[in-house]
């Protein structure tokens, strides 16, 4: 499957971050849907399931951790990989606690971000140090 067939949903309350991640992913041809409101994911998922969801943890008035729990508890969305993306220094523990499939710590290297996203689509089974998704 080509990158252009892959849809990535990103939720962050910082419009700059959305633009940056969106542009970075588009350099590889991914389809990107961004929102400053993480709750939009449920509307979006209902009509067009994304292949990966990137979620900020602290968004104005919305807790990314709750959104992750809801996604993981619903039949429709439970198998979509969720990656937390945050400047929180405890991001690794938070990702483990809320059963996210991985995390990206802010600030991030463009190359690392792409490596991680590409890796999701390249391997059926992998388990690296910072990326603990096992499909």
């Amino acid at each position, binding site marked *: 499957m080509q990158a252009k067939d892959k849809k990535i949903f990103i939720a962050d309350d910082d419009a*700059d971050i959305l633009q*940056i991640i969106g542009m*970075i992913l588009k350099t590889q041809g991914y389809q990107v849907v961004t929102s400053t409101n993480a709750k939009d994911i449920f509307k979006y998922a209902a009509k067009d399931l994304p292949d990966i969801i990137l979620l900020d943890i*602290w968004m104005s008035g919305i807790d990314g951790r709750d959104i992750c729990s809801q996604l993981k508890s619903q039949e429709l969305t439970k198998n979509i990989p969720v990656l937390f993306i945050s*400047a929180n220094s405890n991001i*690794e523990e938070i990702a483990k606690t809320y059963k996210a499939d991985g995390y990206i710590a*802010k*600030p991030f290297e*463009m190359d690392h971000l792409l490596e991680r996203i590409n890796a999701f689509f390249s391997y059926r089974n992998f388990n690296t*140090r910072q990326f603990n998704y096992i499909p």
Partner: protein
Amino acid sequence: MEKLIQIQLTNENNTYNDLSIQVEELTHQLNEANEIIEAIRKGEVDAIIVKNEEKHEVYTLQSADKAYRIFIEKMNEGALTLNKDGLIIYSNSSFANLVNMPLENVIGFNFINFIPDAYRNSVAELMETAWKKQESKGEIVFDGKIKMVPVLLSMNMLEIDGGIALSVIATDITLQKETQQHKKALEKKDEFISIASHELKTPVTSIKGYVQLLRYNFQQDGNTTAADLLTKVDVQINKLTNLIGDLLDVKKIENGQLQYHEEAFDFNILVNEVIEETERVLKKHPIVATLSESKTILGDRNKIGQVITNLLENASKYSEAGSVINVESSVKDNNRISLSVKDKGIGIPKNQLNKIFERFFRVSSEKENTYSGLGLGLYISAEIIKRHNGIIGVESEEGNGSTFYFELPVYNKQEKENASKG
């Protein structure tokens, strides 16, 4: 006895019945007196209060359990005994000091008189509770000579010789209060560092993202000059990110919250990775590595890498551009591996060598301010190495460069498995 005879003489017209009643009354008094003498002899009575119409006279007994009395007398807490009416029948000098009164103006007086007005109601309630429920506790503030003194009052009801009394211990809790306030201030500081670092990282993320996108676009267009300039911007952004990370690490080390993710990893592969990355970023110094055979280490790979990076960055920072940095490793007794980083830089004065791993410490010299840094890197490195049961050290001479080294235990899988089986 004289008093008794006098009573009889002044009542010579009494009938036989009156006299009988009087004898009975006097016998009762005599028995009571005997009982008191017996109680005093056994050490059950500490003080006797004689009620007069004008005042109460209190007689304390010097002989009653001397060791116990000295102990109470010498303790820092104020110690009191109150009778049912709230009169102080015993006080040690600590309580007298607390209320700033001579002891003779304390004993025999009502306890409530010594309580600041604002607390009288609550202390009266405390006493009532203690009388009813055996004990009570509450905090009040005494207006001391120099400053306000927060005091914890602990009241206990005692049964003394068939009667009841209230013991009161007044503990100065100034230190506890200060410790509490200090702890709160520290928590506030930690919270501030967490929030500040998050808030600092957010714009840094945006700057870094845009810089990297711009660099990508320049690279695509073949404009290598612009791309290289943006790489330099990115290196500076990474320095800023590392400083924020150091502040957070110090906070976590202080609170014992620094997380370690243990894994078995190849030491030389890590060293080479870090050297490659450092050379790419620093560019100013050739790094010559002479590594011995590699060993497996059990520990946090990222954090050990952070230590090596820190030593290399320091070596570069404190030596002239172009000078060589030597990295060497060696294996001792097949169970320890050590790594040293040697520079030809400014060195460290002898009297400052033992402080080099302290938090916020920076070598002081004439050129001190020409070197950037918070003085956290070596402190964090030392903590990380200590947590891996390793040792870290330095050999240096002012003007003649420094050699920083650390040593870590080698991971022996067989040994570990045997140990866990045994």
